[in-house]
């Protein structure tokens, strides 16, 4: 007999999310992921000064604001005709600020969002709030090893804080930095700031090398069945990001399980809305022409997330996508990191498409980005400019594509009469947590859940471990509105 497992709220993610899984004979047959908050950022942005988009869109998400700041700055640069004019210092400082927040976000994600599914906090600290209530049963690490992991949970609170302190040297403050602006950045790279940043970064890199990566390996060794759980759609997409004077750190591309790279073109992105609460007339559009027209009397819809697709196909975004794309495009450092980890774990490349593959890729990416930041800091030129002067055009269009800790993010803007006429954002979680599309293909998280064997329906560890491995960020998913069951029938179109 089929049973319905509802987990609402899904906690230890960013934002408001619910999961519904239909389980038949212990196996998930169907799944729905839904967000439970809608704010309407794209509607709020209409009619505003285009420069303010950078400050406002950052506030979409307090965990990855710098990614929205970067996407918005690239988008505004494009619309203002500044893409080729931003000074090298500006490119480097934007990348350094974004990189610092990658480190913060990845460490926060592993220790403070995901780890409590694997590490027995209660065993080490006792039954304290907020660690109880919790799922019981499948905690496989005990004694000294467990106590050490719990102590790293506490240590990681300091380390992630220090990432934000480091970031604010150039960003001014965190969350919501003020340094990234259209045309460049506001803060100058003096020698004392560069040295100060480097020494803070050294402490973080030491933690990544000697604590974070070993802890991910320890978890993987104790939960090695999770190399075979949560495979997902098997198609990895990245827009590319970290635009440096010498090129991009992360290459754009699409790669499937055959590990053959395909080039990426933004024109191939469309958003379906058949299963979303938007008018069907807006289905299948590229975000440059995208519309956000709520329509709530649609029977087949169950989410206000649209369904972004690439050439009509489902794709997964995030650290795994970035690392695999760089790997298959011949990035020597990434290849060395990934091969070394797989070797230590005795796993093949196919194991990357899994819950543990996602955690492993994220940890390696923290090392890859953190190490690269040293070079960026050393390339800064203290006496040279950080920003280029600019004017708001009467009419224009822009696109800004970059990477957020949890996957690619894109901003699209149209300016009319020097004001924002249209602003569209597609976030990584919109891709990963999307509902079924026009062809009925489930989204990436839904596909990762479907087919999973649930051992204990009262403590469905498998489901939350799969969902959290994607590092969902629901506040980012700006179109989102709760869309569970038939209660949406009570909505009136707004």
């Amino acid at each position, binding site marked *: 007999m089929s049973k319905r497992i509802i987990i609402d709220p899904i906690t*230890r993610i960013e934002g*408001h999310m619910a999961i519904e899984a239909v389980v038949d004979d212990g196996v998930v047959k169907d799944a729905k992921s839904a967000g439970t908050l809608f704010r309407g950022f794209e509607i709020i942005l209409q009619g505003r000064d285009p420069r303010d988009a950078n400050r406002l869109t950052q506030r979409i998400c307090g965990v990855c604001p710098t990614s929205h700041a970067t996407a918005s700055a690239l988008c505004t640069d494009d619309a203002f005709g500044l893409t080729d004019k931003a000074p090298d210092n500006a490119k480097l400082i934007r990348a350094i600020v974004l990189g610092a927040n990658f480190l913060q976000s990845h460490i926060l994600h592993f220790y*403070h969002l995901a780890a409590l599914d694997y590490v027995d906090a209660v065993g080490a600290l006792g039954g304290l709030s907020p660690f109880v209530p919790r799922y019981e049963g499948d905690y496989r690490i005990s004694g000294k090893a467990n106590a050490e992991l719990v102590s790293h949970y506490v240590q990681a609170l300091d380390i992630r804080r220090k990432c934000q302190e480091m970031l604010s040297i150039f960003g001014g403050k965190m969350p919501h930095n003020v340094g990234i602006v259209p045309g460049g950045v506001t803060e100058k790279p003096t020698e004392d700031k560069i040295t100060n940043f480097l020494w803070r970064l050294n402490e973080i890199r030491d933690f990544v090398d000697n604590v974070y990566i070993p802890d991910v390996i320890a978890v993987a060794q104790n939960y090695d069945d999770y190399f075979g759980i949560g495979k997902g759609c098997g198609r990895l997409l990245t827009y590319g990001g970290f635009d440096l004077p010498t090129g991009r750190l992360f290459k754009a591309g699409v790669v499937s399980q055959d590990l053959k790279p395909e080039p990426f073109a933004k024109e191939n992105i469309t958003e379906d809305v058949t299963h979303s609460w938007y008018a069907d007339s807006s289905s299948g559009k590229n975000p440059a022409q995208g519309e956000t027209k709520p329509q709530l009397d649609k029977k087949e819809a169950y989410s206000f997330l649209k369904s972004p697709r690439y050439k009509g196909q489902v794709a997964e975004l995030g650290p795994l996508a970035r690392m695999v794309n760089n790997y298959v495009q011949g990035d020597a450092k990434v290849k060395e990191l990934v091969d070394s980890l797989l070797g230590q774990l005795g796993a093949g490349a196919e194991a990357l498409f899994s819950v543990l593959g996602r955690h492993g890729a994220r940890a390696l990416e923290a090392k890859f980005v953190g190490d690269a930041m040293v070079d960026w800091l050393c390339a800064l030129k203290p006496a040279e400019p950080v*920003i280029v002067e600019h004017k708001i055009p009467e009419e224009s269009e822009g696109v800004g594509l970059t990477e957020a800790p949890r996957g690619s993010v894109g901003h699209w803007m149209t300016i009319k009469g020097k004001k924002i006429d249209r602003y569209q954002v597609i976030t990584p979680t919109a891709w990963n947590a999307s509902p079924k599309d026009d062809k009925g293909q489930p989204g990436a998280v839904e596909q990762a859940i479907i087919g999973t064997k649930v051992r204990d329906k009262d403590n469905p560890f498998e489901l939350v471990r799969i969902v959290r491995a994607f590092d969902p960020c629901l506040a980012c998913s700006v179109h989102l509105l709760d869309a569970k069951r038939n209660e949406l029938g009570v909505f009136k179109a707004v």
Partner: protein
Amino acid sequence: MVTKKYPVVWLQGAGCTGCSVSVLNAVSPKIQNLLLDEVVPGHQLNLIFHATIMGGQGEPVIEVLKDTEKDRKGGYILVVEGAIPTAQEGLYGSIGERDGKHLTIEKSVAELGANALLTIAIGTCAAYGGIPAAKPNPTNCKGVKELFAEKGIGTTVVNLPGCPLHPEWFTGTVSVILFSGLDAVQLDNVGRPKLFYGQLIHENCPRRADFDKGKFAEKLGDAGCLYKLGCKGHYTNADCAIRQWNNGVSWCIKAGSPCLGCVEPEFPDGTSPMYEKVTFEDLK
């Protein structure tokens, strides 16, 4: 000495989690001290609900809210982060499922607020509506105090605005309450503790000398007072200039950015366009 414990329920509404992340950045005390230790001798917080960090999920954590409201009436502190969407009977935002129905942010804040010892509205969204309530306010978002007034809820609300708030505005307010009691928290006319929001940015700004000498930055990245570039420091009430951000590393104006006025009730509509000058004449 017996430790006095204060249960804390932290609800997230229409927001970005940025205020939670900012509180994670607290230094003295650190977040681990807030979670595990006596914040001041003899007094300890007991965070029983916070969706971003709590161990559990699903129905059991919603039960925690039910039990809190019933069993600890008048004995817990409610912290609200994010605005409260009220359009469509609150269905634009829900924090979970209860008894087969959406538990909306509006309903949970009202229910838990009515029985709380006090409510702390953390960040500009919870205090005054903030960005989700910006024009055209698609989901009819409100701040906590406005919601309480409409529903006849008399619980004291302390506003700690900021986008996000400074972590010490939270730990400092908690300290005043634990050491000296709620009555010792002196609020200004928009519900903010005067201890943190009692002076203008302009009064303590390190670029004040530039303002007085008429040395103004003409474009971003220039030295000088940022008044002509849209700085809102001359009517923004907060101690950022003295306290600075992220463990004293920097803050907006130090990094060459105008103050956005993010602690003010009119943020962001009344402080936009953000990079356009607001004169002293305009303020009259």
